[in-house]
C-alpha cells in the first residue's frame, strides 16, 4: 500500500511530462510560452499587490511581538528613555524575569498555575464534552436531534461576553463566585467545538466501520474509545487548540467573577499590575508587565506551533465532499 502511494507522484509526474512533450511537439512555436504564463492551482502567478499586502500583514503581526521581546530586556527607566524598537544599553531580561516571578511573593507563578488549572480542567473538559456530544449527534439517530442542532447553532451565535453578567448573577446565587469553579464550569461548554466535532465526525467516521464493529460484538463505548476517537484525532486537537486559546486568553469572565487575586488567571493579573501605574500612590512596573506578557504568550505560541498541522487539517474539515 505504502509503496504504491510513494510511487504515485513519480508516475503522475512522468505521465505529465510525456503529455507536455507530446503537446509541445504538436503545437506551433510560441504557444508553449503563452501556456507557461498560465497558472495552475499549485503554482499560482506571483502578484506584486498581494505580496505587498502579505508583507504588511506580516509586519503588522510581528512588530508587536518584536516590540515585546525587545522591551522585556529593559529596566523601568530604560523603557522611558530609549527608542521602542531597539535595545537599551542595559540588558536586564533575566533580571526582569526573576523579578516578575518573585514580585509580591511570587503572585505571577500563582497566576500561571491558576491559568494552567483553568486550561487543563476547562479546555480539557470542554474538549471531552464536545467530542462525546458531537460524535453522538453525528452518529446516532434519536428524537430531538434537530432541536439540539438548533440550540447548538443558536448558542454559537451568542458571544460569551454577553452571557458573563447573567452567569455571574446565577453563580453568585449558588455561592460559586470568587472560586475557581466560576471560571472552570462556564469554560466547559463549547458549542463551537461541539459543532466542529459533529461536522468532522459525519465525514471522518464511516458508519460502515461502526456497523462492522457492532457486528464483531464491540460495545458502543469500546467502539468509541478504540476506533472513533482515533479517526477523530485531528478534529479533537483542533477543538482542544480552540478551547485552550480561548481559556488561556479568557479575560472578561474572570474579571467579573473573581475579586481575590489569588485566583486570578494571568490575563486579569497582568491587567492589575498595569493598572497600578495610575493615580494616587501609583507604582508603575511596566517592565514587569511587559516581561510578564512575554512569559504569558510563550506557552500559547509553543502550543500553536506544535499543534499547527492538526489545526490546519481541522480547519478544512468538511470543506471537500469526499
Amino acid at each position, binding site marked *: 500500500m505504502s509503496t504504491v502511494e510513494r510511487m504515485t507522484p513519480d508516475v503522475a509526474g512522468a505521465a505529465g511530462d510525456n503529455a507536455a512533450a507530446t503537446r509541445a511537439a504538436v503545437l506551433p512555436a510560441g504557444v508553449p510560452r503563452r501556456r507557461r504564463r498560465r497558472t495552475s492551482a499549485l503554482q499560482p502567478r506571483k502578484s506584486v499587490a498581494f505580496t505587498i499586502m502579505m508583507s504588511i500583514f506580516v509586519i503588522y503581526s510581528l512588530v*508587536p511581538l518584536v516590540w515585546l521581546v525587545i522591551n522585556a530586556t529593559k529596566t523601568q527607566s530604560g523603557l522611558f528613555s530609549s527608542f521602542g524598537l531597539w535595545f537599551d544599553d542595559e540588558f536586564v531580561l533575566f533580571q526582569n524575569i526573576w523579578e516578575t516571578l518573585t514580585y509580591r511573593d511570587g503572585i505571577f507563578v500563582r497566576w500561571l498555575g491558576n491559568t494552567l488549572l483553568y486550561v487543563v480542567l476547562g479546555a480539557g473538559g470542554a474538549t471531552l464534552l464536545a467530542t462525546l456530544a458531537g460524535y453522538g449527534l453525528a452518529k446516532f439517530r434519536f428524537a430531538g436531534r434537530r432541536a439540539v442542532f438548533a440550540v447548538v447553532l443558536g448558542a454559537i451565535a451568542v458571544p460569551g461576553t454577553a452571557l458573563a453578567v447573567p452567569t455571574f448573577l446565577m453563580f453568585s446565587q449558588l455561592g460559586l463566585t470568587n472560586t475557581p469553579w466560576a471560571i472552570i464550569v462556564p469554560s466547559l461548554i463549547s458549542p463551537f467545538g461541539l459543532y466542529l466535532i459533529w461536522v468532522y465526525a459525519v465525514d471522518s467516521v464511516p458508519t460502515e466501520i461502526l456497523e462492522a464493529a457492532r457486528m464483531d460484538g464491540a460495545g458502543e463505548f469500546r467502539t468509541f474509545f478504540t476506533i472513533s476517537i482515533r479517526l477523530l484525532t485531528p478534529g479533537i486537537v483542533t477543538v482542544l487548540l480552540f478551547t485552550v486559546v480561548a481559556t488561556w486568553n479568557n479575560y472578561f469572565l474572570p474579571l467579573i467573577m473573581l475579586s481575590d487575586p489569588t485566583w486570578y488567571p494571568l490575563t486579569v493579573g497582568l491587567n492589575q499590575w498595569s493598572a497600578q501605574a495610575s493615580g494616587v500612590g501609583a507604582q*508603575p512596573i511596566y517592565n514587569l508587565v511587559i516581561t510578564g506578557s512575554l512569559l504569558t504568550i510563550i506557552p500559547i505560541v509553543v502550543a500553536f506551533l506544535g499543534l499547527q498541522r492538526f489545526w490546519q487539517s481541522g480547519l478544512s474539515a468538511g470543506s471537500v465532499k469526499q
Partner: protein
Amino acid sequence: MTTARTALRRTLTVAAAAALAVGSLAACSAAGSTESGTADDLDAALEAGGKLTYWSWTPSAEAQVAAFEEAYPNVDVELVNAGTNTEEYTKLQNAIKAGSGAPDVVQIEYYAIPQFALSDSLVDLSEFGLDQLEAQYSASTWGAVNVDGKLVGLPQDSGPMALFYNAAVFEEFGIAVPETWDDYVQAGRDLHAADPTKYITSDTGDAGFTTSMIWQAGGRPFQIDGTDITVDLADEGTQKWTGVWNQLVEEDLLATTPGWSDEWFKGLADGSIASLVIGAWMPGVLESSVADAAGDWRVAPMPTYDGTPVTAENGGGGQSVTKQSENPALAAAFLRWLNSDPASIEVFLESGGFPSTTADLEDPEFLAIESEYFGGQKINEVLTQASKDVSEGWSYLPYQVYANSIFGDTVGQSYANKSDLNDGLAEWQNQLVDYGNEQGFSVNE
C-alpha cells in the same frame, strides 16, 4: 486591534457595572446589621477580636495591616488587592448586587463614595461615634465622606492641587512661574514656540482633572438632594475654566500623551511635559517613578483666576465599612485605627502619601521637611497651604464612576478634535442626564 479590544473590554466592564448598578439602587440592602455603639464598644470589639477582610490597593496597606495585627493580636485582617480604582469598584458593585462577597472594609476614592453611599451599601459610621473625629481632618476631605447627612467613611489621603513644574526647563527657556491662568497659557505658548518638542503640560481629557479644574474655578455642576440631581456643565465656573483651557486645546499647546502611560512618565523625565497641575500626592509618584529627573522639579501654588488663592481636591480617598460586614463594630474599630491612629498614619506617610489629618498637615516637622528630589524645597509648606485653600461646596454625582468612564467619548472628542470643550461638556451632560433618569434618579439640566 489591541486598542480596539481594550476599548471593547472597558466598555463591557462599564456595561456590566452599569447593569448591576441598576438593581442595587432599587433593592434595599439585605444584609447590614445596624448595631450602634460608642468608642468603648469599639475597644471591646478589638478586644474580642475576629476576622476582617480589607480591600485596598494603597502601597501602605500591607505594612499598616501588619502593624495593626501586632497591636491587636486577636484581630485577623485579610488584605486583598481587588484591583486599582474602577476595577475594584466594579467588583464591589458586583458583590453588593450579588448580596455576598463584599469586604468588611474597603478603600474608595472620594469621587466614587457617593455612588456607594446612595445605593445604601455603606455603614453610617456616626452610629459608632466616629463623627466625633471631625476635628482631626481637613474640611474638604471630611466633606467628601459625608453624604446625605451620613458619615460613610473616614478620609485617608488628600489631594489639594498645586502646580508641579520642571524648573530646569522653565529656567532654560526663561519662563516665569505662572501665578494666574493667563500667565499659564502664555507660558504654554512661549515654551512651545521656543522648543516645539516641549509642552507646558499634557491633557488628553481626564475626567478627574476636569472636574477638579471646574471645582477650582467655582463651578458646581453637580447638585444632589437625595435622588434629585441637577447637572449643569455650562455654569459660570465651568465656563471660566473652558475659557482658559480652550486656548491651550485649540492652539495645540497640550502634549497628547495619555496620562499614566509609559510615554507620559518618559515625558515627565525628559522635560517634554514641563508642568502638572495635580494633587499633593504627586511627589511620592515623581520620586519613585520619575527618579531620573531628581532635582529638576519644584512645587508652586496652583495658578488662580484673579490672584485670590483657591484650590480644589484632585484624587485621594478613604475607607468605608460595607453593610455586608458581619462584624461592623470590629470593622469600624479597624477603620478608626487605620485613619486616625498615629502609628498607622506614620506608616502611611513613610510610603509617600499626603495626609488628610490636620495634626499631620500642620506638624512643624512635616512642614520643615526639605525634599531632596525637589532640590531642597520645603514642598509641604506649599501643599499644606493648598489644603487650606480648597474651595467649599463641591459634590460628585452618585454615578460618577460611570460618568468618568464616558468622559473620553464625549469631552475627549473635543480634545481630540482641538475644538471647543463646551461642546464636549454639553454632550457629556446630555448623556449624564439620560443615564441618571434611567437609573431612577430625577435629573434636571
